[in-house]
């Protein structure tokens, strides 16, 4: 019971998961900016010519020279950061997307009338209460189904007696089942 309550009270998305995602995003962004810094540092840190005129001309011509270098370095940063962030995004969000996809398939199977097994996600997956709530629902339906079938079976036992008793017991069982089903709306 306490396990069931713990599953009910479990957060849909754990704070640890959110902080982990933010931390990895921070590391990823810092890595991308670090690579951009290294490229620009390598391009800009070359020593200028020693004489006055050489420095003057080098600085005058540096801006047009740096333009493609800057463009390429930003492009490299964007490609690396986009690649690593996309991989991170797919990997981390898989902890939500995977269970969601699994639940969709189980719902499709349920509607198709295929036997539905108890749903469980991997321990590090998020949205665990979803599986628990689904299991609770299916469990309640199965308990009701067993009770209705047991009621019918009990009524059938009276068929060992006379026909009239059997029929009246069966009709009483049907009224009980219909009354029981009224809770579904």
């Amino acid at each position, binding site marked *: 019971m306490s396990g069931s309550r713990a599953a009910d009270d479990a957060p849909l998305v754990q704070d640890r998961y959110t902080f982990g995602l933010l931390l990895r995003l921070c590391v990823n962004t810092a890595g991308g900016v670090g690579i951009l810094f290294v490229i620009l540092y390598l391009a800009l840190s070359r020593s200028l010519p020693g004489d006055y005129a050489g420095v*003057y001309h080098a600085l005058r011509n540096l801006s047009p020279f740096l333009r493609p270098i800057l463009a390429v370095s930003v492009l490299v940063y964007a490609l690396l950061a*986009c690649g690593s962030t996309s991989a991170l995004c797919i990997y981390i969000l898989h902890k939500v997307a995977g269970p969601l996809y699994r639940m969709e398939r189980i719902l499709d199977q349920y509607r198709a009338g295929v036997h539905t097994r108890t749903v469980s996600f991997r321990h590090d997956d998020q949205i665990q209460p979803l599986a628990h709530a689904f299991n609770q629902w299916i469990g309640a339906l199965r308990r009701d189904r067993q009770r209705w079938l047991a009621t019918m079976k009990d009524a059938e036992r009276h068929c060992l007696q006379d026909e009239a008793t059997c029929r009246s017991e069966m009709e009483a069982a049907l009224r009980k089942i219909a009354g029981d089903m009224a809770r*579904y709306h």
Partner: protein
Amino acid sequence: MRNSALQPPRPSVRYVNPRFQGPAVLAFTAIIAIGGAIFWKLVDGEFQRVFPKAAIRGHYTFNSAYDIVRDLLSWHLAGLFLGVFLTGSILVLVIIAATRHGIGKAVDSLRTSADGDLSTPTGTGPIGEFDRFGKKIDAARSDTLTSVRKIRSEADALAAGGMSPEEFRLRWDELKQQIRTIAP
């Protein structure tokens, strides 16, 4: 040889859901691309201004071009990092909030279903993937309610009597079969 029939079912989730992860990846990519473009535009503009200005100033107390733009570059790189990270963080928090809201509604809906309410819409909200998921849950609940109502009306009809014992027995058995199809 391993007998797969004896293996316990593994609760593994191997699938990637592009409808959920795809938009998030695109949004992060857009943030990085926009951040990079703004950085390029600003730094390029500064380089066009700073180096000619340094050339005509005349006092060359630096060894490399990096010495001229060190502070400028540091500030812009810090700005790029903060801009991309903070916008990305906001996106992460929005995704988490949307997940909590959408899946929270689905969980509430399944819990009320266990109490017999199969008709109140899940209401997972307008966000694509969660909306679709909510509709799937509603469809499963609706199917169950239809089955239960059908069985109930048949049980009521049988309980009302007025039919031959043969027909009653036949419909009784059919009803049992129908009940067995609930939550297979």
